[in-house]
């Protein structure tokens, strides 16, 4: 249940989240509410804590939540293992997807769909059609299925494969951690189309983590948050991304510092 009763129920809510790793604080009090059907973006420089936020929502065991909560459909995720979070509908498109030599893509996709959406969804012609359709949309050739997961993939192939998984796993909340970096403009459009298909007009939501506004031009996020030094210093509509692109992060720092003084 959401904290204030006059607000609509959030799909995902982050409440006063403080996170550290090996004794170093990285996130220093973050609040975020994503409603069903919404796309939010988090922008920030390297080292601002963006990837930490993504990993903590997914449940990476190395991070320590010092304070606060992460809720999906009003229920705390923090005691759940990563695979339980995945089965409840959280998906993370990794910045650096891991290679698993010997594990075939086709096999892995089927097992993952079976695990998250149930055995029935991973069987027969319906699954094959779904798979073929998604691969066509992402311009992924069929031969991809017999390759090994992320083994010897180019940067672009890895990112497309993450989005393919997202489309097949049908998450409630998709987190895209710098999925746009290293992609050319066609790749970015493809990824954006994938996100729009997965979220717009559905009960799902997405959180896009990025350095650049380019992908956001194609997704048009409902909210943009700027993360600096482990805190969200400002939030706004899609226009914030454009302003950031034009003026840089220094500008945000100045503006937010001025606001604090005022």
């Amino acid at each position, binding site marked *: 249940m959401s904290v204030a009763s006059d607000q609509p129920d959030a799909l995902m809510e982050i409440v006063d989240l403080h996170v550290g790793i090996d004794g170093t604080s990285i996130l220093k009090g973050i609040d975020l509410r994503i409603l069903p059907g919404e796309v939010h973006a988090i922008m920030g420089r390297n080292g601002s804590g963006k990837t930490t936020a993504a990993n903590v929502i*997914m*449940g*990476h*065991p*190395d991070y320590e939540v010092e304070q606060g909560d992460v809720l999906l459909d009003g229920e705390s995720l923090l005691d759940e*293992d*990563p*695979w339980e*979070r*995945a*089965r409840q509908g959280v*998906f*993370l498109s*990794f910045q*650096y*997807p*891991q*290679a*698993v*030599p*010997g*594990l*075939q893509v086709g096999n*892995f996709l089927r*097992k*993952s769909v*079976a*695990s*998250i959406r*149930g*055995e029935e969804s991973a069987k027969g012609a319906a699954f094959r059609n779904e798979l073929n359709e998604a691969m066509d949309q992402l311009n992924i050739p069929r031969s991809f299925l017999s390759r*090994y*997961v992320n083994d010897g993939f180019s940067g672009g192939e890895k990112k497309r494969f993450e989005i393919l*998984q997202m489309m097949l*796993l049908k998450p409630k909340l998709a987190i895209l951690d710098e999925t746009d970096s290293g992609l050319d403009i066609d790749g970015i459009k493809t990824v954006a189309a994938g996100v729009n298909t997965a979220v717009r007009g559905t009960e799902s939501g997405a959180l896009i983590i990025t350095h650049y506004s380019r992908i956001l031009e194609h997704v048009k996020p409902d909210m943009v948050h700027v993360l600096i030094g482990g805190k969200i210093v400002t939030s706004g509509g899609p226009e914030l991304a454009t302003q950031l692109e034009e003026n840089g992060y220094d500008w945000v720092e100045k503006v937010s510092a001025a606001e604090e003084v005022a």
Partner: protein
Amino acid sequence: MPDNQEARDAVGDYKSGWNDSENSTIRFDFGLSEEVVREISKLKEEPDWMTEMRVKAYKHFIERPMPNWGNTSALSGIDFDAICYYLRSSEATENDWDDVPEEIRNTFDRLGIPEAEQKWLSGVTAQYESEAVYHSIREDLEEQGVIFLDMDSGLREYPELVKKWFCSVVPLTDNKFSALNTAVWSGGSFIYVPKGVHVEMPVQAYFRINAKNMGQFERTLIIADEGSSIHYVEGCTAPSYSTDSLHSAVVELIAMPGAHIRYSTVQNWSSNVYNLVTKRGIAHENAKIEWVDGNIGSKLTMKYPSVILKGEGSHAEVISVAYSGDGQHQDAGAKIHHLASNTTSKILSKSISKNGGRGTYRGLVTVSPKAENCKLNVVCDALILDEESRSDTYPTMEVANPTARCEHEASVSKVSDDQLFYLMSRGHSEMEALAMIVNGFFEPFTRELPMEYAVELNQLMALEMEGSIG
């Protein structure tokens, strides 16, 4: 989703570890002597030459010291006086499962052998303790002249062929354990494939030790005549006992010119079994010998499938995987001797150790001075799952001809937390994620197995991965 609880309930369970009550018809006292050797031969009504060969081998076994290399402390734990060298549980080798004593038949049913036979095999031999209890071959192969018998029947029915080839690849004095096998051998397979005959579906042998403190010494001889081909598959299991058993087999392969022999093994002995096996083949001109060797079980395995590339243009391949868990040491590898020109060889070894298990790759490839233009390729990869476990690699190449092209790669890796996290984020539990990584690591091996075996191996590994996460 497979039910995790169900999988978890199986933790630590060695799947094939049950035992039947022992109903032996003949059982020798523990311990070995020349008299025991002669008794075994007499019981089998063997020709004199075989009796004398056994006795000679026995004498060599007694004189030969234990190996002074490898895991000598584990080896010194073998008590040769506490082993039963011959035990017969069934009066005859049957060719109908219905005639096999019920308890033994049930065992093989539980192991899925009759079912596999119907689905995808050309022939089956099932050995229980010292003797084959069941044996059959598809009629069409028999009509083409293919001989597939248990070794004892082979000696009875084709004494000349056996006399010609027995001990021709692994000589009587080869090593202590092969000498022991030659002295007390019983069971195993005898196969002859006539010229030009291709046995399309694999033939399988299944070896089961049931009794405590048992020694199983099967002997296998496969002769593939010119231009023929055969794929032989063997599986091995035993009950889990607190006392040790000994499995010491000898396998000899002869691939005549242009022949192709593939020999696949998945041994899953319980962790009280010493598995000390000598496997060797001779490849004549343009022949091909492949050993596909999976070592999952046993307490200590020492096994180095070998190929002597005797004929020009012959090819050898040894693909092996070893899994070492708590209290296990898999000392495995390969030996290849390039004696002729234009011969090629490939060794791929994959080992996984966890929970303090120890994996050793021991390999030897030689090229003789006269062998021109040989190609050698050796790849050994080790995956270590925790800090307590150990992996060692002893690759040796002795190349006496400068025209040889040698390639060698070795890697040792650990499963990373990031790799596990990636797979877990796709809905797979930590145990499932680890099994995916491990099965992927073994994939170049499982790809070479008949599909039914590959599936079984993957399931086996998934079970082994249980409980490996703290």
